[in-house]
């Protein structure tokens, strides 16, 4: 910037001097007096112009110097910011004065929008509702997604149960088992629910729904009434289950160290391959499972830039082969279908009861017989009658759960395709023995 200005200023001054010396040269030649007079006049004019040009040059030099200073200031500020670790954007100006923008919010506007509820109960509207009425409101407004018993339909959130599962592999995080504050339940139901019809519940309806959710978690009796008056006294099951972010102490302290660059391990093997090979197939439909195993992958060893030589040329073997008589493709397909069940049922080694009973050893098992699971009446009756799960019974049940077992609390609507029924049967046989 400063350089280019100098280059502009100097030729202006230099050009004027050149014109002046040319004029003087003409003046020394033997021309007529008139011409000399005219030339003298011209010299005066040129002198004046030269002075003007000099003044302008001085002004511009001063401007250049100012600019240089300004640039130095900006550069210093930028360097300081860069050194501080910030980016190179200059902060927006701030002033002690207000900008005078916006207008004062009216009390009724604040009241309309400021409806959040704090953990200590501040922000609660006046009102009340009991679990008994809450069950009716819940059935009408909430159960289509969350199930009549707050057990969750399909992938929608489970609101009840899951106590003592937080340390399990797949913790069931419900209002009862996980949420630390009752205020959160009221606030969320009141402000964000029902899905697709938010902010339509009255305060009383909200109290009733919250009371019912507590009841469905066995935390209160069905005559429990919740109101703005007894709200703050209610303590949630998991209120002490949270710690504030402790990564700085536990992790950052450890993981801020110069990392290894060479021979960091003697060798590396593939221990697991992607579960889903094509996540979004071109022709739509569900993700395509990956049946390849890690058996035929190379081992990488230190001191070699890439793979070792112990590759095994083997055909990909299906990952699920628990029983030789089962079609592995059908089993794999069943595993995919089971995703619809997995929110409520566990199966496989160490499977425990979730909101539905575990499904290990299902075939040949007496209905309603899993220890520690609270069955609906219809299953208790089936158990008393000595009914046993077999392929036919399971297929009929899964096709239309509520008509096969009238009164079952399983909220699942059923598998319509015979292929899915066959697949899930094969899958449950393969893992549940």
């Amino acid at each position, binding site marked *: 910037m400063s350089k280019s200005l100098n280059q502009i200023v100097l030729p202006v001054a230099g050009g004027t001097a050149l014109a002046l010396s040319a004029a003087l040269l003409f003046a020394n030649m033997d021309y007529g007096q008139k011409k000399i007079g005219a030339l003298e006049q011209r010299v005066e004019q040129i002198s004046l112009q030269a002075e003007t040009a000099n003044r302008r040059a001085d002004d511009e030099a001063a401007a250049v110097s100012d600019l240089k200073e300004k640039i130095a200031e900006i550069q210093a500020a930028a360097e300081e910011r860069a050194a501080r670790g*910030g*980016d190179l954007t*200059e*902060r*927006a100006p*701030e002033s002690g004065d*207000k*900008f005078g*923008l*916006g207008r004062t*919010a009216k009390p009724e*506007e*604040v009241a309309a*929008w*400021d409806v*959040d509820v*704090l*953990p200590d109960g501040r922000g609660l509207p006046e009102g009340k509702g009991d679990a008994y009425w809450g069950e009716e409101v819940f059935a009408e407004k909430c159960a289509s*997604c969350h199930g009549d018993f707050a057990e969750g339909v399909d*992938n929608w959130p489970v609101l009840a149960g899951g106590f003592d599962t937080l340390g399990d592999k797949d*913790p069931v995080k419900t209002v009862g088992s996980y949420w630390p504050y009752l205020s*959160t339940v009221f606030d*969320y139901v009141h*402000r*964000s629910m029902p*899905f*697709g019809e*938010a902010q339509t519940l009255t305060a009383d309806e909200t109290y009733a729904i919250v009371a019912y959710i507590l009841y469905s978690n066995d935390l209160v009796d069905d005559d429990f009434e919740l109101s703005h008056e007894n709200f703050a006294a209610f303590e949630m099951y998991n209120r002490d*289950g*949270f*710690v*504030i*972010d402790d*990564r700085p102490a536990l992790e950052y302290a450890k*993981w*801020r*160290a110069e990392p290894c*660059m*060479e*021979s*960091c*391990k003697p*060798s*590396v093997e*593939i*221990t*697991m*391959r*992607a*579960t*889903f090979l094509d*996540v*979004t197939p071109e022709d739509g439909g569900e*993700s395509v499972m990956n049946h*390849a195993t890690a058996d035929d992958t190379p081992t*990488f060893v*230190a001191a*070699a*830039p*890439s793979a070792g030589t112990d590759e095994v040329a083997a055909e990909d073997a299906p990952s699920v082969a628990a029983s030789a008589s089962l079609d592995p493709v059908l089993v794999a397909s069943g595993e995919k279908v089971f995703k619809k069940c997995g929110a409520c049922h566990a199966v496989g080694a160490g499977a425990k009861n979730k909101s539905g009973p575990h499904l290990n050893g299902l075939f040949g098992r007496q209905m309603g017989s899993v220890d520690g699971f609270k069955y609906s009446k219809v299953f208790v009756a089936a158990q008393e009658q000595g009914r046993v799960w077999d392929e036919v019974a399971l297929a009929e049940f899964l096709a239309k759960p509520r008509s096969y077992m009238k009164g079952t609390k399983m909220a699942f609507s059923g598998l319509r395709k015979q292929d899915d029924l066959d697949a899930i049967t094969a899958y449950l046989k393969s893992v549940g023995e």
Partner: protein
Amino acid sequence: MDAKTGTSRRSFLKGSVAIAGASVAGAASASEADPLITDVQDWASITGAGVDETPYGMPISFEKDVVRRNVEWLTASPISSINFTPIHALDGTITPQGCAFERHHSGAIELRKEDYRLMINGLVDNPLVFHYADLERFPRENHVYFCECAANTGMEWAGAQLNGAQFTHGMIHNMEYTGVPLRTLLNEAGLAAAGELKDKWVYVEGADASSNGRSIPMEKALDDVLVAFKANGEALRMEHGYPVRLVVPGWEGNMWVKWLRRIEVTDMAVESREETSKYTDVYEDGTARKWTWVMDAKSVITSPSPQMPIAHGKGPLVISGLAWSGHGKITRVDVSRDGGISWETARLGKQGDTKALTRFYLDIDWDGNPMLLQSRAMDETGYVQPTKEQLRAMRGENAVYHNNCIQTWFVDENGVAENVEVS
């Protein structure tokens, strides 16, 4: 990608036949003259599209695979769901708005600027209501920041799951935001009423049906949080909160409240649904971490990757990826080709942006042998991106959020890449 031969990223996935075909077609030693050069092509003879044919341009049709994708079975309904940025197919650092991931809790809403109101209330001297036009009269700033969902890579906690960088790491985007610092608006309402600011909070809330709300400590609110109305030079897209969203640099995406309608100064955290039942991390003993706002340093190789196999055979290969940290600048990225036995330091692209994506490259001469590709980011605090084992040893396998582990891609001799876990 090539309309004439009909090959696409998808046929690469189907096996080595397509790969072999592609490398032959791309061979430099073609025996015959290339008709694409020797014959006069239509596009060199017939005129093309006139101006204004698309008043707002879309990517050319050949790029139609480079789109956001969702995985339907992950969530109950697309209205309350997430999709993934096609990071595997992008380069540089800026994410175009049209393919930047979306996360909605009750769907994306159409809210006109004329109907937009922003309220500041709570412990302020004067509760205020702003119209959209008011916001454009405050001094504003431009910053590039990444926005990463806390659940990015969450599916991978228990093991290698989804085959593609888009699905394992695509809950992220990086844009240049234009907006007013939140502190400017808070000062306009006046914070004298709040007294000691150290233990105060700002609760921010959206105008959509989910009314998503989060509590932000005052210290952060007064630091670098922006009330933004432009991204990458143009208005925010509907799906990103048009006309106004919050930008909370370096912190989890859920706090970047869209359709921002209210800012309340409070004396405690609201403990809303999204900061208690969600966005908290359950550990092996059943206790959970809360207020885990910062996104730690993380990186991923975007190419080669499962959706971006090596199509050209051995020889010059560009390994490319992204790195970022919620703690500041990325200072170094190392790449391993052997699953972490040895590491080489990659070349960083444009540097200097804090809490923004950094591009890295490692240019190699591939010998055609299988590789286990990994990348490892370091940030200006000296933090080194951990391995999956380190994270699991610390947190167990029940966590969902904040998985910033080192990712491994297995690249076989055909150049096909797969998501794997290694010893």
